[in-house]
């Protein structure tokens, strides 16, 4: 009996210790209007009605929903995905909804929500905000607030929630929504197209260089809900924007579904940099809980000399299924994919990119760094396709895997489909392991094992981290070390 109690004490301590590592795991107690669980045409209509959408968008949603019904969940990824009951999820949660008896004021944001974002390090008061960064803060299904909107508008830049864009800039949204990721694209894209709630919309007009970083911070708060955000970025000719995305969620024992779409259109000589630090709740050390992250991200380098760069640091989620891709149809267009994916404990990640070369002299670079620890599985999956007419296409791919311990797995699935003889495609891959000798060498110099792993991992991921904007790079470095804490016994 005594012993049992001792063990319980110990387990409690271990639990506290492992949970401490995820410092974003709190929940916000705020009145949230959540619609009934389940998915049907009525639910799709209800979401559309709540957002007071025009008829064309409801039609788009319904077509997507009907198509989704004909599809099966993809099984080709190197992932062990438990069955997901799509009828057990609520598809819309609005933390900004006013209680019935509360006085109605549309401009006021519940201070609890502002506090939440403060706690996450994302102050939404413009005078307190990070310098040079505008933020769209999304909680559950609704955009809470977008900062610096007016400042940006002076330059003609549109930065707002996608719901607002549908109301204020319907022509732009209708022109581009689904133009890069059609709703038929895949199972999760169809689902998202049917039920997407909020997300950000960015339009950079011709010749404008966006003077500040734009960012969206996604937060899941409500229980038993899915988050289905949708982001659309359009960079008109000769424009430039750097966009950042961050995400966190509370620690819950149940898994939560997140299925997003990001579409980017890059016109002539324009450049878009898209950076992600994905830190959804990864589940606990025993693999309980965590976010299922099924995301379709794709950019279209439509214009000549256009440029798109994806940088991602993936440390969170129980399951990650994500392949930020580029269609290079503009002549001389360029695309980059820089990725660090960390998996620990029971996390699973299947991530990579697709580079589709259609235009002449198009160029793509893929740098992928996988880090696996614990009992996790980490896969790189990439496709390089060079179409018949893509003369002079070039691709360089480098896929490295780093293993900590002997119970984790690292896998590489590079696919190539080259249909033009002038193409030059290079692929390099390495697998390495942090050795006991390396750790001991650091220990002897006075550096603890966890700090040593942090040093080694950050050194290994440096090429990718350096691509991130300054504030994010520092955060990402810390995150890499924290994610791997306790991974070497």
């Amino acid at each position, binding site marked *: 009996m005594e012993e049992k109690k001792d063990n319980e004490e110990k387990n409690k301590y271990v639990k506290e210790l492992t949970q401490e590592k995820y410092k974003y795991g709190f929940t916000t107690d705020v009145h949230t209007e959540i619609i009934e669980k389940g998915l049907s045409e009525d639910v799709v209509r209800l979401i559309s009605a709540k957002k007071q959408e025009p008829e064309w968008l409801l039609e788009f949603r319904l077509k997507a929903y009907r198509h989704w019904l004909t599809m099966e969940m993809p099984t080709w990824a190197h992932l062990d995905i438990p069955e997901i009951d799509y009828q057990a999820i609520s598809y819309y949660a609005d933390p900004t909804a006013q209680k019935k008896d509360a006085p109605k004021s549309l401009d006021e944001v519940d201070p609890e929500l502002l506090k939440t974002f403060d706690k996450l390090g994302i102050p939404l008061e413009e005078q307190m905000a990070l310098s040079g960064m505008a933020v769209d803060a999304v909680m559950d299904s609704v955009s809470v607030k977008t900062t610096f909107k007016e400042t940006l508008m002076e330059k003609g830049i549109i930065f707002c929630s996608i719901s607002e864009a549908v109301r204020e800039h319907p022509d732009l949204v209708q022109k581009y929504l689904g133009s890069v990721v059609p709703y038929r694209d895949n199972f999760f894209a169809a689902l998202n197209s049917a039920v997407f709630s909020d997300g950000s919309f960015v339009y950079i007009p011709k010749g404008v260089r966006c003077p500040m970083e734009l960012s969206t911070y996604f937060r899941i708060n409500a229980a038993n809900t899915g988050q289905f955000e949708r982001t659309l970025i359009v960079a008109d000719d000769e424009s430039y924007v750097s966009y950042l995305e961050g995400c966190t969620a509370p620690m819950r024992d149940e898994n939560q579904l997140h299925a997003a779409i990001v579409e980017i259109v890059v016109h002539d000589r324009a450049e878009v940099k898209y950076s992600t630090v994905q830190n959804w709740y990864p589940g606990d050390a025993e693999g309980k809980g965590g976010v299922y992250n099924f995301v379709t991200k794709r950019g279209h380098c439509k214009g000549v000399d256009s440029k798109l760069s994806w940088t991602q640091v993936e440390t969170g989620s129980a399951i990650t299924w994500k392949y930020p891709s580029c269609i290079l149809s503009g002549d001389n267009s360029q695309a980059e994919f820089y990725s660090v994916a960390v998996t620990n404990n029971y996390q699973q990640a299947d991530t990579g990119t697709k580079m589709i070369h259609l235009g002449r002299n198009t160029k793509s670079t893929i740098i992928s760094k996988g880090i696996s620890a614990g009992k996790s599985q980490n896969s790189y999956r990439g496709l390089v396709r060079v179409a018949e007419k893509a003369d002079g296409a070039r691709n360089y791919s480098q896929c490295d895997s780093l293993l900590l311990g002997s119970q984790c797995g690292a896998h590489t699935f590079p696919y190539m489909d080259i249909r033009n003889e002038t193409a030059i495609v290079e692929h390099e891959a390495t697998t390495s392991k942090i050795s006991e000798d390396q750790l001991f*060498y650091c220990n002897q110099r006075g550096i603890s094992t966890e700090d040593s792993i942090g040093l*080694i991992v950050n*050194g290994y991921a*440096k090429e990718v981290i350096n691509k991130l904007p300054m504030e994010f790079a520092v955060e990402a470095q810390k995150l890499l070390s924290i994610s791997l804490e306790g991974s070497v016994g």
Partner: protein
Amino acid sequence: MLEIKDLHASINGKEILKGINLTIRDGEVHALMGQNGAGKSTLSNVLVGHPAYEVTKGSIIFNGKDLLEMSPEDRAHEGIFLSFQHPVEIPGVSMVNFMRAAVNEQRKYKGQPALTASEFLKLMREKRAIVELDGKLANRSVNEGFSGGEKKRNEIFQMAMLEPTFAILDETDSGLDVDALRIVAEGFNKLRTPQTSAMVITHYQRLLDYLKPDIVHVLLNGRIVKTGGPDLAQKIESRGFDWIKQEVNG
């Protein structure tokens, strides 16, 4: 400073050290000689707390503290430094970041504030000069692509940065040409203070010519079987170990 009593240690269940007794006082340099497999490297690994070795009996007291109770990093913070026989390469970790972490961890342990970037780089430049280490090497990853001689020089450079009170040189002379040996040995001598003591493991007299040990020990089959002055090393250089073995067995 260092007091080892009846130390027994094994690796993978095999006993290598079978009762080592050794006392090293402040400022003394001890040479440890012996054939391959005698237990020299095991002793140095046990002193720095390598996890592969298990201490089965005995004690090690360092400056009044029980060394065996301390983690490897705390032993380092307490002033113990090992110049590795085979320094490992750590790709991706620059020497600058590596040393900065090491120096600041030590300062934290001692309750001192971390060095600023400019203070630290100044310190690096000063210490690099002691072992004539190329500035370019300091910007590379730890030991990556270093020649054998450069790795050894890099070990002494790290010693200069961390200013240990007790240094273990495990075959620091192996793989060094005459010039590199002189630079490394002279560098080590420059770093010595009246309080610094050292244990030097070597097969050759040429390193001891520079380091001038106070006491020379011969290790045989896990025990110190003979202890003498500098002349003992010279005798081994000319006559080998067989006469000692005969003495022990006879």
